[in-house]
């Protein structure tokens, strides 16, 4: 493991309170999801449908993006394209600048986290306030989201109470959730009123109608996209679906998989800016479509499945690794299984290829994914991409994780395994001299005993029992 990830892991594993907190949170999310999918057959059917809808959209991605863009222009939404996060940030900044924006409110958006948008804009003197309660909390704490759906999942009630007390000393200390929520509501209402612009993410783009869809429970997304005179949405190019009729099944899969809700409080479908005669809504709506490596992922037939993701977080909630580490240890924008397939592809294997190794391949993520992304298979594929040397394929950093000692060991093994006589001798001597084999096997034996070799090879035991290898 590299320094950064290694340190993150060590730190997370040393935090017992965090681990207990995560275990409880994940258990409850797992139970809630199960409860809203009472019928296994119906669930599997819906997952197949969800996969087909997303697969269909990706199979026509360039055409759908053009169709979507044309409809948006008709509806009065300005569409911008950005190759990189830097370009996306600059685009947003230029729009804000041309409207002389000083203060803005933000709805939750993982793509804006990917862009590091707040940081970028604040350096230019624009106040960015996160308005989703969870995002608001971590912004106060100067942290990053530890989960893609519940950004402040890692924080306990007491930690939040202390944080509020520290940041707003005038307000009496309370660790009552309703009171804390009321404090945030009061502060943010004022900000919604004053904001010159609102920034949001998007859950689905509909090519047929040129509509932006937002899923949320709090109403801050509606506030950010309705109250300020300017609305800028940022999202990835993969978010498009072909028809309006594709949305209800995906919405149902998304909310049920994410939080076990049959539906969220608000489903907000935006077609354009305020029309003549209308009394509210933004005067201008812009959408920034970000690539940032997605078109490269798109080029690989197998890895393209990564782009089916609807960001529900179910894979994260069911991941034994995430449940022990939490999101921050990964050191990436997207943690957990989805992060471990997405981030190495976006950032390159040389930097983040090790994330694909941070998995037991237990398969839970692939089983719960509402759009049936074969995450374990893709993790394996990325492990291979990290060591293959044939120079084909699209993944950046290919072959950069190859280790000389490892490849030597595998070579030795394969030459041994393809010579039966030699192999038998080797196994026999390993059994005979098993007590003389090393007991210290690097980090593995720091906390475990070295595996013991049996007295007799399996082959002999089986022969004694009269079984043959047919």
């Amino acid at each position, binding site marked *: 493991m590299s320094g950064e990830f290694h340190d993150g892991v060590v730190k997370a594993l040393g935090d017992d309170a965090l681990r207990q907190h995560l275990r409880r949170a994940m258990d409850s999310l797992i139970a809630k999801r199960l409860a809203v999918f009472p019928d296994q057959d119906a669930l599997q059917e819906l997952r197949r449908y969800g996969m087909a809808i997303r697969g269909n959209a990706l199979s026509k*991605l360039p055409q759908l993006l053009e169709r979507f863009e044309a409809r948006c222009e008709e509806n009065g939404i300005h569409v911008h394209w950005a190759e990189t996060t830097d370009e996306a940030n600059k685009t947003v900044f230029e729009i804000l600048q041309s409207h002389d924006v000083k203060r803005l409110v933000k709805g939750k958006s993982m793509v804006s986290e990917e862009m590091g948008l707040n940081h970028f804009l604040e350096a230019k003197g624009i106040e960015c306030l996160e308005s989703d309660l969870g995002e608001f909390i971590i912004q106060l704490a100067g942290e990053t989201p530890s989960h893609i759906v519940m950004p402040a999942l890692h924080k306990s*009630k007491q930690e939040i109470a202390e944080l509020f007390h520290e940041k707003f000393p005038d307000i009496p200390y309370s660790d009552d959730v309703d009171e804390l*929520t009321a404090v945030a509501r009061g502060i943010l209402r004022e900000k919604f009123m004053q904001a010159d612009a609102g920034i949001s993410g998007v859950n689905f783009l509909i090519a047929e109608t040129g509509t932006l869809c937002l899923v949320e429970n709090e109403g801050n997304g*509606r506030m950010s996209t309705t109250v300020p005179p300017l609305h800028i949405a940022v999202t990835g190019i993969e978010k498009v679906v072909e028809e*309006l*009729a594709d949305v*209800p099944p995906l919405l149902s899969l998304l909310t049920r998989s994410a939080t076990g809700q049959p539906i969220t409080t608000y*489903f907000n479908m935006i*077609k354009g800016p305020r029309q003549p005669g209308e009394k509210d809504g933004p005067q201008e709506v812009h959408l920034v479509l970000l690539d940032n490596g997605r078109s490269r992922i*798109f080029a690989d037939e197998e890895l393209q499945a990564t782009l089916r993701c609807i960001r529900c977080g179910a894979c994260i909630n069911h991941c034994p690794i995430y449940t022990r580490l939490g999101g921050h240890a990964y050191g990436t924008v997207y943690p957990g299984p989805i992060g471990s397939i997405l981030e190495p592809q976006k950032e390159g294997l040389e930097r983040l290829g090790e994330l694909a190794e941070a998995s037991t391949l237990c398969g839970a993520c692939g089983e719960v994914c509402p759009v049936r992304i074969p995450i374990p298979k893709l993790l394996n594929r990325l492990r291979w991409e990290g060591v293959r040397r044939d120079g084909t394929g699209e993944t950046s950093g290919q072959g950069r994780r190859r280790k000389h000692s490892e490849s030597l060991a595998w070579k030795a093994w394969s030459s041994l395994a393809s010579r039966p006589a030699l192999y038998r001798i080797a196994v026999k001597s390993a059994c005979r001299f098993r007590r003389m084999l090393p007991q210290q096997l690097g980090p593995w034996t720091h906390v475990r005993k070295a595996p013991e070799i049996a007295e007799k090879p399996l082959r002999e035991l089986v022969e004694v029992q009269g079984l043959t290898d047919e």
Partner: protein
Amino acid sequence: MNESRRQILDRLRAVSREEGGVLQRRVDRRVWNQDEKVQRFAECMSAVRAEVYRTSEVSWVNDLQRILKSKGAGNLLYAPAKAHGKLLREDLSSSGIELVPYDLEVERWKRRLFEQMDASITGCRGAIAETGSLILWPDEDEPRLLSLIPPIHCVLLRAEQIYSTFSEAIDIQGWADGMPTNALLISGPSKSADIAQVLAYGVHGPKSLVILIIP
């Protein structure tokens, strides 16, 4: 900018894939009669702490008045140009609850809207039984913020306009042929579980959602 657009689309187009099969779309419907739909809708709404009242054409204004009084609301934001708006003006004006029309652009009275409105009332375009959701298409007469800013949001719903699923509503109402500037599904009062996974209501939107069902 246009250069990026071209580059991205070119890269996507350069990937040639075999045509996948045609996506078999289906409308998901349930065979529920109206009573079952009302029942299911009310159950889902109650589960998320919305209040559902079965009322009637003649008594809804009275019922509304009673509910608002019990919640201590002193005023009611409404859409004066809607049919229910006219009725409210006739029947609610002597109740002591001040009727406030939403007839100005938001910029002209933002602070009052945000700080002084106790409750609001809107109609809706129907509802969804499966998930317990109201369908709202805000428009010139009934702006978007009516259903978002005041802490109590009341909605008039006609029982015959409850569809079994979202997919059925989209299909029967022909949404794809023309969407409004903003279409909404509202499935309860505003809520969050961002603090220690404990549910709290009224985070940014209304804390109470009151639904009056008219048969």
